[in-house]
C-alpha cells in the first residue's frame, strides 16, 4: 500500500509512539513570533530550562504588532528579542527587517520539502506549499519544541483535492481556496491534511500555492500540502544550489516525498474550476462563501490588502493592475501592508507602491496589521471591511466589525467603487 506525503514525513521523523495513533516527531523548524512565544519563554525560564534545542532550526520574527504600539506589546517584543540575543539565534528579524511570519520564512528559503515545521500560529499550514508537514500548535507544544525539538501529533489522514480544468482570467488561488472551504466546511478537514493536486496546482506559482495552503486551517485541516516539483526547486534554488549539482538532482531528491499513486485517502474531491467566479464570504465563518455575482453592491468602510494569505508580490501586482490610474472611493479607507521588506522593495521598484499611493491607499510597514484587530486598521462597531485575509470571525478585526474575505483583485475593485465589485467588470 502506498503512502501519502504526510505519511512519508511522519515515518521519516518518528521518534516515539507513546500510545496508539499519537506520534512524536523530530522537528526541522520551530518558528516563533512575539504573541505566542513570550509565555513559552517565561515558562522555560521559570522551570530553569532556558535552553533551545538547536538555534539554527529556530526562526524568529516580530510581526503581529510592529513597531510596538504600547507598553504591553513592547514588553512582548522585548521578551522575544532578549531571548533571541541570549541564545544567539542567527535568524531573528526585528523592526526594519521583519515581515509576516508565513511570508518571510519561506522567502528566506527556510522551508524545504519533507520538513516538519511547527509554530504557535494556526496559519503555519501555509508552509505545506513546499511539500512540508507544517502545523500550528499552542504555546505548550511550542515550548516543548523549542526545548527538545519534538512535537506530538495524532497522525492525520489525508484529503485529496484535485483541481482540474482551466482557471478563468481574473480568478485566483484565493477564489479557489474559498470555494474549496465552502465545499469541505469549517471542520471538514479536522485531523486531516489537505493535499492540493491537479493541473491547476501544477501551473501555480509558489505564492499562489501558499495562498491555497494558508487557508487549510479554515477547513480545520492540520496542514495543507502541495507536491514538490520544478516550481518548488526553482523557488528554492538560490538557497539550495550548494547542496545539489543541478536542479534536476534537487527535484529527484525532493520527489521522494510525493504521495504514491496508490496512497489511501480519507476523501477525494474533484473540482473543475473552469467556470469558477471570484468568491466572497458572507457571515462570520470562512465556509460561508458566495460567487461575486451574489455579493456585488455591498458597501464597505475599509479595504485591506495584505496578510499571510495575500500580501505577497503577486497579490500586490494583481491589485495594482486593477487600481492603476484610478482613485479609491471617498466613502472608504484603503490600507495595503506588503508582507515583507523584500516584497515592499519589489513593489517600490515596480511602481506598485506609487500606484497604491496615487489611488489614495495608506501603505503600512510589513505586519499582520488589521487582520486580527490587535494592531492598526481596527474597525469600529458596525463597520465592514473587504479584506484579503483569511478569517471573517465576528469581531475579528475589531469588536462589532464584519469582514468579507476575497482576492486582492476583488478587494482592489471594491476600493475603487466603494461597494463589493467584480474586478472583471471595471
Amino acid at each position, binding site marked *: 500500500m502506498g503512502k501519502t506525503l504526510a505519511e512519508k514525513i511522519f515515518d521519516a521523523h518518528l521518534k516515539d509512539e507513546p500510545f496508539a495513533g499519537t506520534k512524536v516527531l523530530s522537528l526541522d523548524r520551530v518558528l516563533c513570533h512575539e*504573541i*505566542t512565544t*513570550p*509565555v513559552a519563554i*517565561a515558562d522555560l525560564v521559570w522551570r530553569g530550562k532556558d535552553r533551545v534545542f538547536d538555534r539554527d532550526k529556530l526562526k524568529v520574527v516580530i510581526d*503581529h*504588532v510592529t513597531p510596538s504600539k*504600547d507598553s*504591553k*506589546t513592547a*514588553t*512582548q517584543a522585548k*521578551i522575544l528579542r532578549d531571548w533571541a540575543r541570549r541564545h544567539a539565534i542567527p535568524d531573528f528579524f526585528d523592526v526594519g527587517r521583519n515581515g509576516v511570519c508565513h511570508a518571510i520564512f519561506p522567502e528566506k528559503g527556510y522551508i524545504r520539502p519533507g520538513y516538519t515545521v511547527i*509554530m*504557535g*500560529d*494556526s496559519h*503555519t499550514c501555509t508552509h505545506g506549499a513546499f511539500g512540508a508537514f507544517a502545523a*500550528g*500548535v*499552542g*504555546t*505548550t*507544544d511550542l515550548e516543548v519544541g523549542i526545548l527538545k525539538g519534538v512535537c506530538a501529533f*495524532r497522525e492525520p489522514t489525508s484529503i485529496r483535492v484535485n483541481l482540474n480544468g482551466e482557471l478563468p482570467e481574473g480568478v485566483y488561488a484565493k477564489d479557489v481556496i474559498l470555494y474549496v472551504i465552502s465545499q469541505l466546511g*469549517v*471542520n471538514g478537514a*479536522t*485531523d486531516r491534511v489537505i493535499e492540493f493536486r491537479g493541473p491547476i496546482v501544477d501551473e501555480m506559482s509558489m505564492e499562489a500555492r501558499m495562498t491555497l495552503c494558508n487557508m487549510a486551517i479554515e477547513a*480545520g485541516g*492540520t496542514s495543507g500540502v502541495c507536491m514538490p516539483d520544478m516550481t518548488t526547486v526553482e523557488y528554492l534554488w538560490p538557497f539550495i544550489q550548494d547542496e545539489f549539482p543541478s536542479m534536476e538532482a534537487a527535484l529527484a531528491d525532493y520527489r521522494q516525498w510525493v504521495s504514491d499513486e496508490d496512497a489511501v485517502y480519507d476523501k477525494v474531491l474533484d473540482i473543475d474550476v473552469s467556470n469558477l467566479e471570484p468568491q466572497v464570504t458572507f457571515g462570520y*465563518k470562512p465556509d460561508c462563501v458566495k460567487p461575486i455575482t451574489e455579493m456585488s453592491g455591498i458597501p464597505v468602510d475599509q479595504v485591506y490588502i495584505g496578510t499571510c494569505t495575500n500580501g505577497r508580490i503577486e497579490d500586490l501586482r494583481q491589485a495594482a493592475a486593477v487600481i492603476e490610474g484610478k482613485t479609491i472611493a471617498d466613502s472608504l479607507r484603503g490600507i495595503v501592508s506588503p508582507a515583507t521588506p523584500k516584497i515592499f522593495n519589489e513593489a517600490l521598484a515596480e511602481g506598485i507602491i506609487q500606484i497604491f499611493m496615487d489611488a489614495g491607499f495608506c501603505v503600512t510597514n510589513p505586519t499582520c496589521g488589521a487582520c*486580527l*484587530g*490587535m494592531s492598526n486598521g481596527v474597525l469600529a462597531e458596525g463597520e465592514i471591511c473587504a479584506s484579503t485575509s483569511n*478569517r471573517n*470571525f*465576528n*469581531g*475579528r478585526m475589531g*469588536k462589532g466589525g464584519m469582514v468579507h474575505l476575497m482576492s486582492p483583485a476583488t478587494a482592489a475593485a471594491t476600493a475603487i467603487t466603494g461597494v463589493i465589485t467584480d474586478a472583471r467588470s471595471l
Partner: protein
Amino acid sequence: MQKKFGGPAIFLDRSDINTDEIIPAKYLTEVTKEALTPYILEDLKLAGFDPKGDELRNAKVVVSRENFGCGSSREHAPWVFEVNDVHTIIAESYARIFRQNMFNCGMLAIELPKGGYRPVDGPAAARQGRDCGRSGRAAAHRPGRQRRAAVCFRDQSVRQGAG
C-alpha cells in the same frame, strides 16, 4: 493544586464557537494567564448568553456543539477557561489545536457523539462522582428533579440518565 472537574454547567448552543469569541486577539498582549480572567467569551453573541452574567461566572463545565475552539492556535483560549475555573468542556467535536491545548493544560475535552448535544431545561449542574470506577459523574437538574450524566474518564464518554 488539584483541579475539580465537576460543577454547574453552561450550555452554549451553537457550533463553531471560535477562539476569537473565546478570547479576542486584542487581549493577547497579556503575558500571564491570570490577566485574561475578565475577558472570557467576551465576543460571543448568543441568545440569552451574557459574558458578564452569573451563569457563566458560576459555571465549571461548558457544554457545546461541533468544532468547538476553531480558529487560532492561541493557548489563551483554554487558559481563559482555566483561570475562570472551567476545566471541563463537553462538545460534539473540537478543533484540533484547541483540543490538544486543553490536553496540554490538563483539562478535559469530552467528546459527545455527533448530534449528542441535548440541553436540559433549567440550570444544570455537572458533579464529579465517586463510584463509577475511574469515571466522574455529571448531573443536570431541574428544581425538584435531578438528572445526571456520567462522564467516564477512561474513554471520556458521556452517558445520560445515570442518576
